């Protein structure tokens, strides 16, 4: 179903955004390195791919007139989540650009800040790219070279957000959160592979089932009544 695909895409984007943020946190600190900059670049590009995919899918669905009202509300909710995710991504990208300018790696005079954070971010990057191990292939001065690309990508994201706002008419204030305050405490969090997207998909599936069962019962009831009437007609004539 389209809804599940959209949700899965959105979950992936959210995951990559969180990973990107985690990596941007460490720029300029003791765990900064060329590898980090390369990880940032790759994660960022993956995030952009996912963003474009999300946008295409959601705009296609929102333009579709045959979608039912509840489905439309659900897709609007996903749209609002998507645009907020993009906002956060853009902010983090801008921060990365600033920090990248402030802390170039190969200049001997500029020192990195003693933040007390050790350990690399390769695990986080691997999770973002959904690979087992990260492969590092970049040149030595990626931290400086990459910044121009980063600037361009920030502009691209900015333009995408502007286009989204202009073309898709979804008023944000009409969307209501599905979760009450404190809802995050209820579902158990497993640190690892299973994503929350799966849990909510199951919930949705059970809802679908209930409505399907109800429809089935009503249909069969109508069918039985029709059969009884036909039998009566046959018997009387």
């Amino acid at each position, binding site marked *: 179903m389209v809804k599940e695909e959209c949700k899965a895409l959105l979950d992936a984007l959210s995951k990559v955004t969180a990973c990107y943020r985690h990596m941007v946190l460490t720029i300029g*600190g003791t765990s900064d390195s060329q590898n980090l900059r390369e990880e940032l670049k790759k994660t960022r590009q993956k995030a952009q791919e996912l963003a474009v995919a999300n946008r295409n899918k959601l705009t296609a669905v929102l333009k579709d007139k045959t979608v039912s009202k509840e489905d439309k509300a659900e897709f609007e909710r996903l749209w609002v989540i998507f645009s907020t995710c993009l906002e956060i991504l853009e902010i983090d990208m801008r921060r990365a650009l600033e920090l990248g300018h402030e802390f170039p790696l190969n200049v001997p005079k500029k020192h990195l*800040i003693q933040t007390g954070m*050790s350990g690399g971010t390769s695990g986080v990057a691997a999770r973002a790219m959904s690979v087992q191990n990260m492969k590092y292939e970049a040149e030595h001065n990626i931290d400086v070279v990459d910044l121009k690309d980063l600037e361009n990508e920030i502009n691209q994201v900015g333009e995408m957000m502007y286009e989204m706002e202009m073309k898709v008419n979804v008023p944000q204030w*009409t969307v209501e959160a599905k979760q009450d305050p404190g809802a*995050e*405490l209820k579902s158990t969090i497993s640190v690892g592979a299973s994503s929350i997207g799966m849990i909510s998909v199951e919930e949705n599936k059970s809802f679908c089932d209930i409505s399907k069962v109800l429809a089935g019962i009503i249909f069969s009831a109508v069918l039985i009544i029709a059969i009884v009437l036909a039998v009566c007609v046959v018997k009387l004539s």
Partner: protein
Amino acid sequence: PPPLQTPYFWTSTKWPATELDYAIYLAKKNIRKQGDLIEHEKDNYNLLHKRINHTWDFVVMQAREQLRDAAPAGAGGAIDCQEQAYWLVNRPPVRMGWGSWVGGQWVRGWRVQPWAGGEDGGAGSEHGPGPVRRARGFPPAPGTVLYIKFNEQYVPHDPIMSGCLPSNPWITDDTTYWAMNAPTVPTPTKLRVERWGFNFSELLTDPLGRAQLLDFLKKEFSAENLSFWEACEELRYGEQSRITEIVDSIYQQFLAPGATRWVNIDSKTMERTLEGIKTPHRYVMDDAQMHIYMLMKKDSYPRFLKSELYRNLLAEAIIPPETKKR
């Protein structure tokens, strides 16, 4: 060397700490502490849930994802500490008075108020968020008391806060309200006459009020004060080319010994003014004008309010009836 804050969390005007970020941080903390947030954080959490309700699902999603990255890594501890410090700076618990920092909270009497405000405290709780309540034993700051008094006095007169009779012209297209409150009308509205009693400047700035004051002063034989004051206003705000002319006429009418409408100014001010007249400019009469103004305010104005003239005005003033909605 002690560890420093990672550059991401440095305060900068380029990236202010947004509500969204704070909401995600609170959600993460909520999960990690299993619902055991500090009081002000709980209040902020609920407030934010209402305010950015439309993206709350995203907040929860992102909080979960961010926790996934933070928990297993050994470096996670340092980042969490730094994040907590960042939010302590950017969303401090508003506390009044001094207390002591015990177990992550300010103790000893002073209630921690959420930075987002909205709790009523102190005097005037009917007026929405009241002033921040100071510690017990301290009076509220003098400005707040006057501010509250001013609001209490003027709220019934404000057409937005208390509605305007007969009806709001912008809504009903009925301009009676403006007609009744025009600068010169035969019968003023009751609210207007009441306002004359608030302070002297209200009376003086209202043309109708000023006319009534003039009548009253004529009865008391001190009308020249008001005329003098009006003439000085004309000097202050009048044309540059006419200044010498006006100064001259004021002198002839009010200040010259044996003038027809001689005003009673004390000798020092009179000396200064007469000196100043020799080189006339816009503000030569300021001292004298202020003196007369204070005289009217302290002397004639209270008498005016107690006079029969004013009481009659109050009695005759009309309260416009509310037009029935069609």
